């Protein structure tokens, strides 16, 4: 029986097949899934903000794209992943509310996605697929055996990336 492991907001976890990692109700946050198909190992981070260096209260490293990605990579390597085998899929970064004044905080979804992509580039991790932006929430599941990323949204059914 495959176990479904939940990753909360500002949290990250890794697992091996047949277990599956999920994070529920991504809004402006971004779900970063990294996996190594050779050893069927996957990791998932649910980040809330793009950059830990811009924030004073940055003790929770899983909350920020930069520090979460760093830790996720370390944990995957510790569990036996080869850096050269690791690839990524991402989802989320929506703008849930539309406001007249486009303040920075309203565009946080876009900023989270941009920061994540830039970091993946810096680490030279190929981005295999993404389902980002829009104005709706997403639940995602990452399957370490196939690298399949399921994206569910209300009224939109399930997409497979």
């Amino acid at each position, binding site marked *: 029986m495959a176990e479904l492991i939940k990753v909360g907001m500002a949290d990250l976890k890794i697992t091996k097949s047949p277990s599956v990692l999920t994070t529920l109700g991504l809004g402006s946050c971004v779900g970063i899934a990294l996996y190594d198909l050779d050893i069927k190992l996957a990791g998932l981070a649910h980040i809330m903000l793009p950059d830990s260096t811009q924030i004073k*209260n940055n003790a929770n490293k899983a909350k920020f794209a930069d520090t979460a990605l760093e830790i996720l990579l370390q944990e995957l390597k510790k569990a036996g992943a080869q850096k050269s085998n690791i690839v990524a899929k991402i989802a989320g970064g929506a703008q849930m509310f539309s406001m007249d004044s486009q303040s920075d905080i309203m565009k946080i979804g876009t900023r989270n996605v941009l920061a994540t992509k830039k970091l993946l580039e810096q680490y030279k991790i190929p981005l295999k697929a993404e389902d980002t932006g829009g104005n709706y*929430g997403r639940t995602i599941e990452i399957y370490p055996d196939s690298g399949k990323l399921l994206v569910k949204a209300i009224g939109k059914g399930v997409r497979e990336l």
Partner: protein
Amino acid sequence: MTRSIDDLNSLHLDVLREIGNIGAGNAATSLSVMIQKKVDMKVPEVKIMDIGEVPGILGGEENLVSGIYFGMGGAVNGNIMVLMDIHSAKMLTSMLMGKSPDTIKFDEEVPLDDMDRSALQEIGNILSASYITSLASLTNLRIDLSPPSLCVDMAGAILSVPAIQFGEISDHVLMIENRLFDGNNEVTANFFLIPDENSFDTLLEALGVS
């Protein structure tokens, strides 16, 4: 010194509860005038919660909920969000529209129609304006409210918006839970007060509890 939610003591909470109380009273009165029926209320609860706990009280991260979001301007900058479960949103919409709650189709397959959407936004307006009015009169501060923006989606996704805003300064959120009654029908509306980092100090100082 700039303070955050984490620095609130019981005196601060009492003051915020009292503001919530007056705000809820105003809201019940406005609603009651609008629907020409008696609307009762319970004493609101002020809660400081870990961000991760909030979706639980709304039935889980994937549960369909309704969020109405406002910007605050003037002396206090930040945002307010009114969050309701679908039952409460349906009840309030039906009260305002003078329909039976059963006629309001509202689920994962059928989104709200335009009339119901604007009714729901109007309810958000009444609730948050009542709250802001009591906050403004107690603090003698001028607080402006932007027009509402409505989103009906997964609880986790909607909550990510205040969570991220709070997240820049704290891992906790400030929530005021209001319960209103119309006869046997009970509705719950949760307020999230999200002042900017500096506005939080302004508020506490104006309330005389800094």
